[in-house]
């Protein structure tokens, strides 16, 4: 479904992604962790073309990245992206946030889009917040709207870029719960997060990145109990002690 082959990216002289090769199968959930600045966000931003790269190849759902604007747009319709800062449209209600792309990009009728939108907002537990504007919602509620907004396009792949990092601790679980149920439904997911409980519960593989490279990737069982690399061990001891 997602196929990186020797992908490289530089910001000027800084080598932010070095020789990334990785293959994510359909229905697989891959959790990406690593210290800040390790390139994990940049990596998943490459998957839907938010970041260009200079060398190597990336094929997502049969489309090679780096092609025409039109093919990138077609691809983005199939790939949902959830941001750390939610990025909800502040001038639209929760329901409008969710229906905007289906109406204008998928060309769904307004009625059909609203029906889908209501169902999704119900699914993420926000049936009573449909007419609220983002600034009237808590962080956790906003992030759930953002997830519903991505799902409204009925994507084949969902990408999460630190979806709970900007949330107050008591709101993290409501967002993780939605992501867990999504994973259980068989969605292909790449998730950048430090929520190791989530990784343990739903990840098929956990990946550790440092300085732009994949250091270690393994099934969660192996990854957490017998990490091979020193840097992985060091990182895990820091994030797991609480």
């Amino acid at each position: 479904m997602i196929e990186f082959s020797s992908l490289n990216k530089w910001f000027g002289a800084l080598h932010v992604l070095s020789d990334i090769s990785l293959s994510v199968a359909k229905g697989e959930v891959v959790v990406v962790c690593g210290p800040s600045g390790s390139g994990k966000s940049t990596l998943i931003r490459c998957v839907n073309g938010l970041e260009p790269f200079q060398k190597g190849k990336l094929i997502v759902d049969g489309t090679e990245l780096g092609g025409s604007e039109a093919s990138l747009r077609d691809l983005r319709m199939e790939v949902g992206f959830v941001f750390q800062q939610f990025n909800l449209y502040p001038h639209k209600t929760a329901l409008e946030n969710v229906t905007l792309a289906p109406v204008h990009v998928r060309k769904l009728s307004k009625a059909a889009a609203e029906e889908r939108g209501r169902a999704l907002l119900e699914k993420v537990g926000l049936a009573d917040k449909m007419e609220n504007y983002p600034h009237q919602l808590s962080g956790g509620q906003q992030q759930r709207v953002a997830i519903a907004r991505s799902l409204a396009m009925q994507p084949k792949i969902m990408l999460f870029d630190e979806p709970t990092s900007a949330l107050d601790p008591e709101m993290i679980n409501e967002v993780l719960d939605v992501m867990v149920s999504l994973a259980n439904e068989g969605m292909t997911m790449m998730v950048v997060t430090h929520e190791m409980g989530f990784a343990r519960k739903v990840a098929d593989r956990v990946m550790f990145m440092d300085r732009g490279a994949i250091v270690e990737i393994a099934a969660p069982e192996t990854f957490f109990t017998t990490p091979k690399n020193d840097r992985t061990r060091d990182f895990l001891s820091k994030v797991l002690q609480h």
Partner: protein
Amino acid sequence: MFWMQLDRVMGYWPVLLKGISMTVSLSILSLMIGVMLGFAFGMIRAGRNRMLAQIVGLYVDFFRGTPFLLQVFIVFFILPEIGIELSAFASGVVALSNVAACFIGEIVASGIKAVPLGQSEAAASSGFTRVQQMRHIVLPQAVRIVTPALVGQFVLLIKDSSVVSAIGLLDLTRSGWVIVQSVPNGLLVFGIIGFSYFVICYPLIYLSRRMERRGQATIL
């Protein structure tokens, strides 16, 4: 003496009215053209095409950096030399809407740049085209940010329209010149003219202040 003069000025109400209607129609027409052109300028200025942005930037800076009276003269006296002959009214509209577009363009560009990048990233991630991102996501937010500044600019435009009296248009200012020739009390006549401008502009000033107070959180 004062009351007699006031009475005589009031006798000139048809001239005054004509001036007011000229000023208002000139302003409204220039405002509409200036807004449309200004939004185009603004989108180019904030857009990705560096080259185009710089060309428009140069054009805008030129008109923001030269006296408006001079621009009116160029349109009215110089353009005919190269075969573009415009009536005084058309010249006024061209010069006014052009200068309005230049100022409005910079305001709109600053508004577009003030919308967080995450907004267009979110929209792009859902498959919106550039044009759709601009239309549905970025511009509505940009407009909300700059509305108070825009309305302030509209007030300036109305006041700047007085300059076109220099090419013979009977606007509010010129109607003052006409009246003062038979009622030799400049303070009185231009006091009335000034008050008339204020009456036209004040609703806009009031509107702008109210919008500023309500802030950006409110949804229009």
